[in-house]
C-alpha cells in the first residue's frame, strides 16, 4: 500500500533529504508555504485525514509558542505593536516567529513521513553499505530489545519473588530497578560473548565482506532519480544565489509575491515535495478502488 516500498531505499532517502534541505533553508514565505501544504497533504495521504487533523492542536500550540518566543525576544522591526518593559514588540518579529513555526512543523511532518516511507530496517540498509559496522551494531541492538525487555521482566519477577528487597520507598524502588538493570547488563554481556562466537564461527571480520542484494534498483528508481536531479538544480538555485533570501526586518509586503523567475525556481522545489504526494496518493486511491471492486 506504500509506493515507497517499491522503490530502492536510496531513492526514497534522496527525495526526503532534498525536501528537508529545501524546507530548512526556505526563508521566503512563498517557498515555505507550498512545502508546508505538501507536507500536510503527504501526511494525510499516508495516515488519513482524520489522524492528520488530530495533530492540529499540538501544531497550533507549537506555532503559538514559537511566535511568542520571537515576539518577546526579538526586538527588531519597524511596525511596533506595543511596548513591554520598555522594549518594543514588533509585528515583524511575530511574523518571523510564525514562519519559523511553520518551518519546524513542516520539518517534523516530513520526518514523520520519512519514517513511514522508510521504516528503520530499510533506512539501516542504507548505512550498511558505507558504515557496515555501525549498521550491524544498530541491527544487533534492535534485535536485542525484545529479549532485553523480556529478561528484565523475568529478573525483576524472580528477584521480587525472593523477597530480599521488599522495602518500600522511592530510593529503594530506584535501587531495586537499578540492581535488576545491572543484573540484566551483566547477563547480557556474558551472553554477547557467545553471540560473538556465533559471529566469528560464520566468518565475521574476514576481509571482503559483501552485502545481500535484497532491493535491486529498478527503472522506476532511475526515472525518479533523473527527475529529482533535474528539479533539484533549479530548486537549489535560490539558496546558492541568495535570490530566495527573505528578510522580515523591515517588512516589505510587496516582496511576498516573487517575480516570475523566482516563482519558477520555487515551483521546482514544490514539485519535488509534491511528487511523493502524487505517487502515494495514486497508490492510496488505487487500493480504494480495488477494494470497492472486490
Amino acid at each position, binding site marked *: 500500500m506504500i509506493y515507497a516500498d517499491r522503490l530502492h531505499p536510496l531513492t526514497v532517502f534522496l527525495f526526503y533529504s532534498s525536501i528537508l534541505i529545501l524546507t530548512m533553508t526556505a526563508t521566503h514565505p512563498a517557498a515555505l508555504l507550498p512545502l508546508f501544504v505538501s507536507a500536510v497533504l503527504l501526511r494525510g495521504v499516508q495516515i488519513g485525514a482524520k489522524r492528520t487533523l488530530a495533530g492540529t492542536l499540538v501544531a497550533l500550540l507549537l506555532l503559538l509558542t514559537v511566535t511568542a*518566543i520571537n515576539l518577546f525576544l526579538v526586538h527588531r522591526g519597524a511596525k511596533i505593536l506595543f511596548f513591554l518593559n520598555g522594549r518594543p514588540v514588533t509585528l515583524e518579529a511575530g511574523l*518571523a516567529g510564525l514562519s*519559523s513555526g511553520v518551518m519546524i512543523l513542516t520539518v517534523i511532518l516530513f520526518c514523520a513521513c520519512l519514517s513511514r516511507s522508510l521504516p528503520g530496517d530499510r533506512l539501516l540498509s542504507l548505512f550498511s553499505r558505507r558504515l557496515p559496522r555501525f549498521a550491524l*551494531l*544498530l541491527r544487533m541492538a534492535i534485535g536485542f530489545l525484545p529479549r532485553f525487555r523480556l529478561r528484565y521482566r523475568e529478573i525483576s519477577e524472580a528477584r521480587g519473588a525472593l523477597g530480599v528487597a521488599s522495602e518500600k520507598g522511592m530510593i529503594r524502588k530506584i535501587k531495586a530497578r537499578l540492581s535488576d538493570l545491572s543484573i540484566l547488563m551483566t547477563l547480557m554481556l556474558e551472553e*554477547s560473548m557467545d*553471540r*560473538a562466537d556465533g559471529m566469528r564461527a560464520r566468518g565475521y571480520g574476514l576481509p571482503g565482506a559483501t552485502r545481500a542484494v535484497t532491493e535491486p534498483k529498478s527503472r522506476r528508481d532511475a526515472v525518479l532519480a533523473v527527475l529529482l536531479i533535474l528539479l533539484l538544480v533549479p530548486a537549489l538555485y535560490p539558496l546558492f544565489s541568495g535570490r530566495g*533570501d527573505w528578510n522580515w526586518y523591515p517588512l516589505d509586503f510587496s516582496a511576498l509575491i516573487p517575480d516570475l523567475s523566482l516563482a519558477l525556481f520555487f515551483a521546482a522545489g514544490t514539485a519535488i515535495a509534491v511528487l511523493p504526494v502524487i505517487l502515494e496518493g495514486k497508490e492510496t486511491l488505487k487500493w480504494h478502488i480495488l477494494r470497492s471492486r472486490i
Partner: protein
Amino acid sequence: MTNARTRVFLLAFGGVLVLFDAFLWFRGQYRLAFPLLAFLLTLPALIAFEWRRSGARELAAIAVMTGISVIGRVIFAPLPGFKPVSAVVILTGLSFGPLAGFITGAATALLSNFFFGQGPWTAFQMLAWGTVGLLAGLFSRTRLRKNPVVLGLLGVIGGVLFSALTDLWTTVAATGTLLPAAYLTFLISGLPFTVLYAVSNVLFLVILTRPILRKTDRLKQKYGLFT
C-alpha cells in the same frame, strides 16, 4: 577493515558536507548549518569505529550496552526525568574506552528516536550522548575512573550537555539564528529538567559504578576484550 572504495567514499562524502556546511554558515542558513555541523562532529567517530580493527566481541559488547541504555529509557519511563541513558553511556566509556563510549551514546540516540521520532534533533542528541561517553572513556585507563568526584562531574556534564545541545537546536529552529537571549531563555526554562537529569545521573552512577565496573573488568579479563 573497510575497503579502499569505502574509505574514499566516506572521505569524499565528509568533505562535500563540510564544504556545504561552510557555505550554509556563510549564507546565514543556521537552521540547516547547525544540525549538519552536529552530524559532521559525530562523523569522525563513526569513521574511526569502521576503520578500527576490532573484533566481534567488542562489537557485541557495545551492542549490548546500546540495547541496555535504550531499554533503560523504557524501564524508567514511569519516573519522569530519570533516564539511565547517560549513566549507561558513561559506564560504557569508563569500561570500554572513549570510542566505545561515543558509539554507544550516538547509537542510543539514533535507535531510541526510531521510537520517539527522528528529526534534526537526532544529530544533537547523538553528539551530546556520544561526547559524554567519549569524556568518560578518557578515564577508562586511569585510576580516576572510580573517583567519586570524577563520576559526579561526568554525571553533571552528562545532564548539562544534553540540555545545552538540544536547546541549541530549539533556539536555532525557533529564531533562525543563535540569539543569546533566546538560548538563555530556553536554558533557564529547561533548568529543572537539567538539574533532574544531572542529579539522577549522579545517583545512578553512585549506585551502579562499582558493581558494573567490577563486572566489566572481569569480562575484559576473561575474554580479552578491548585490550
